[in-house]
């Protein structure tokens, strides 16, 4: 027993020494006299970033950190409007085929080296290099033909064809070429200790525990108000709330149950401000329309399905109003809602009429719908880990049962669900998607026929007209022209309903009242610019 106790002491000592050796010394920033500067903001992360390499990262938490340490050429503000960041201005020429970006002068990386167009070109080259596995970045750069750097502060990007969504990809934070060039790109030490030009400098990353950033006093856009930006890894949602209550963190998103328990509590409201925003994530049902099932190849049946589902009722009762029901494929902040788009409200009478018209009539003997002896019964795949999937599916099952349709529900873990979607091995499935900030990001993947095999067009939707519009939307540089193209797509999709767009669930969160001057964008409170610079704590 004594020997075992000695082992324990030795081990404890080893653990105690290890972090002290591995973490870099924290930078002490002396606050100047100015009011409002200083303090620490602590934000919880549920998942650990996989890498802090600006190019290879593909998950949201890595992206949060990268946006603070690095600067992209452009960014989006709290309303998702395009704003300049390292590029002061830009223009499209040659009918939208050439994008010229004019870079900000006098910008330096955190190690003091100057930022130039060579860094931009290097960043682009790393994204398109297959060895980089830049899963989250590559799509926006595939149409690029070449990148030229006529001088240190000008970048000219030549696309294979006019490419209107081009700027979305240039949100990628710019890598320091002089540091990465010396190393193997995938295993470089800067992947876990990034250097950028951004408002915060990287201080330390303690695996599984936290990532600490310190304000960059020499930031070209002015020094940020807070001194320390800390990300704490807290995998459990329950613990996150407890940590907020204990004052260990400044912000926590709340589950619907937690929101209900706390949002109305005066003692809670005295300490915390409640925050709600509509994120870019939405749920939809894909109806496999390639003829592999007898039901969903007919657009009338798909429309009937949408009209049979009481989406508004679900949002107002189950979600207690914290959600938004779209009829468009676009988030309202990505494409302003079209007043002329017909709303597909819950309407069992019209559903029945459409189904009758499509030949799916009620068999008087059984009371169930059938066509030519084939009963209308199908299987809906859902993700078992999401309350929204499970609850919505149950409500839908009951609505359809009353219309004479039998729907079975199959619950899957999400890798399996994705795999079945990808193979087209399903009849109908609930899935979710994080929409991009450019309308093309969402629409092209879901609707273009080239994305049926291996892409995200799970419904196997194939419409020559929509394909043509999607391609036109990529080429149209004029914002008004683009908007009208995407509105045309919306109307056609509303008619053909390859998907039923269910709802955007609202994010509900609580933020310490000592935090000031920030409001969430649809991408959250961190992923916005220049909002984070103005965040301050008392």
């Amino acid at each position: 027993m004594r020997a075992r106790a000695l082992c324990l002491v030795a081990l404890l000592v080893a653990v105690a020494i290890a972090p002290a050796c591995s973490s870099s010394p924290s930078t002490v920033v002396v606050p100047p006299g100015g009011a409002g500067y200083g303090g620490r903001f602590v934000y919880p992360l549920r998942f650990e970033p996989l890498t802090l390499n600006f190019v290879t990262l593909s998950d949201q938490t890595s992206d949060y950190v990268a946006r603070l340490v690095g600067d992209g050429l452009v960014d989006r503000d709290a309303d998702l409007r395009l704003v300049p960041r390292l590029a002061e201005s830009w223009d499209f020429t040659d009918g939208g085929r050439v994008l010229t970006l004019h870079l900000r002068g006098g910008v330096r990386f955190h190690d003091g080296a100057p930022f130039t167009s060579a860094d931009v070109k290097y960043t682009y080259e790393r994204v398109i290099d297959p060895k980089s596995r830049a899963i989250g970045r590559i799509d926006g750069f595939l149409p690029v033909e070449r990148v030229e750097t006529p001088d240190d502060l000008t970048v000219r990007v030549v696309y294979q064809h006019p490419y209107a969504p081009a700027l979305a990809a240039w949100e990628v934070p710019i890598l320091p070429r002089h540091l990465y060039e010396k190393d193997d790109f995938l295993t470089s030490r800067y992947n876990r200790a990034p250097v950028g030009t951004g408002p915060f400098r990287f201080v330390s990353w303690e695996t599984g525990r936290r990532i600490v950033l310190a304000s960059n006093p020499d930031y070209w856009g002015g020094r940020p108000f807070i001194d320390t930006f800390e990300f704490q890894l807290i995998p459990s949602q329950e613990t996150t709330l407890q940590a907020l209550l204990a004052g260990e963190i400044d912000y926590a998103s709340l589950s619907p149950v937690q929101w209900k328990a706390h949002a109305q509590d005066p003692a809670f409201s005295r300490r915390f401000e409640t925050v709600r925003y509509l994120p870019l994530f939405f749920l939809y049902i894909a109806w496999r329309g390639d003829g592999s099932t007898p039901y969903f190849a007919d657009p009338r049946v798909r429309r009937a399905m949408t009209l049979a589902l009481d989406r508004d009722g679900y949002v107002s009762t189950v979600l207690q109003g914290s959600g938004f029901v779209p009829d468009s494929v676009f988030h309202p902040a990505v494409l302003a809602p079209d007043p002329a788009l017909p709303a597909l409200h819950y309407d069992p009478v019209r559903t029945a009429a459409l189904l009758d018209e499509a030949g799916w009539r009620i068999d008087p003997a059984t009371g169930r719908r059938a066509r030519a002896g084939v009963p209308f019964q199908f299987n809906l795949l859902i993700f078992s880990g999401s309350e929204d999937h499970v609850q919505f599916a149950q409500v839908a099952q009951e609505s359809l049962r009353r219309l004479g349709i039998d729907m079975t529900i199959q619950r899957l873990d999400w890798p399996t669900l994705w795999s079945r979607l990808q193979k087209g091995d399903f009849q109908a499935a609930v899935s979710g998607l994080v929409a991009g900030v450019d309308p093309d990001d969402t629409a092209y993947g879901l609707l273009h026929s080239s994305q049926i095999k291996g892409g995200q067009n799970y419904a196997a939707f194939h419409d020559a007209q929509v394909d043509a519009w999607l391609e036109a939307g990529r080429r149209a540089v004029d914002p008004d022209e683009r908007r009208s193209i995407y509105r045309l797509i919306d109307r056609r999709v509303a008619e053909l309903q390859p998907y039923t767009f269910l709802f955007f669930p609202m994010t509900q969160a609580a933020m310490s009242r000592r935090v000031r001057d920030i409001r969430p964008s649809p991408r959250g409170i961190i992923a916005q610019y220049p909002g984070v610079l103005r965040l301050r704590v008392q």
Partner: protein
Amino acid sequence: MIAFLLRRVVSALPALVGVTLVAFFVLNLLPSDPVQVWSGGSALSAEAAGRLRSELGVDRGPAARYAAWAVALLRGDLGHSLRDGRPVAFVIGDALPWSLALNLCAILAIYGVAVPYGLVGASSPGSATDRAGGWALLLLYAVPPFAAALILQQWVAVGLGWLPLQGVSAEGASLPGRVWDLLRHLALPTLCLALSGWAIVARYSRAAFRSVLGREFLSVVRAKGLSRLRAHLRLAANTAVPFVTLLATIVPGLVGGSIIVEQVFSLPGVGRLYLAAVEARDYPVVLALTLLSAVLVLAGHLLVDLLYLLVDPRIRTALLPERTDAI
């Protein structure tokens, strides 16, 4: 002796290969590949997914990938994590110390309470202490770990503010300061792990002591003038065999993670790593962790075999009849 050990080690090798084979093919039965899992909710075009798949080598068949993994392993290379590209040894090395520290604390807490209780209960069976203790431990055993964790957090950390709510760190100006900080962070998770362990080990040790305390030789040594306490302590050596058997489960348990406790207390241990790796279909990490626990299970058994030889002369003579004097 050496020959005996060698025989045991060699006979364990096929089991190791078998374990990794099964783990590998079970992972491959899951109908998805890492690229699909990573792309998750984000838009990834057909072109990009295809490029990535061939770059990672997941477009090759499972047999080819297993062979490549096994060959690299023979050279001592566990490969690189598919998720973050770091060497697997580094990835596991980050999580292992925390799990080891937590599990050691938990084992000490469990045995430190349960073995004395077993001795007390066994020396006066049916007494009020014995029965009350038995009930209390059984009740604690019935509390689900996640509920215990949440209640402890609410009371001790948020309400009273005595201990840290979550996370783990070992910071401080001096070495004792760091150890103290680490112990404070590990206190609540250790307690959670100990709750269920206490009842089991207490029952076990009580039964072990009971089997010895009723024997006649105890009366003989008492009659010869040894005090009750000293007699009991001396006799404890005779109960060593069942405790040695328990070691076989403790050794692999040292690196096994407790997913729930690690999750609730934000501990970056092996349990969370395992779960994350399986979810991401990160084959190299999953295989290495499986291999590690298989090695430890086998090592545990080997250790037990050795200790049997030491603590029980009967086993020694049965196994090594020709040279009992060698040990």
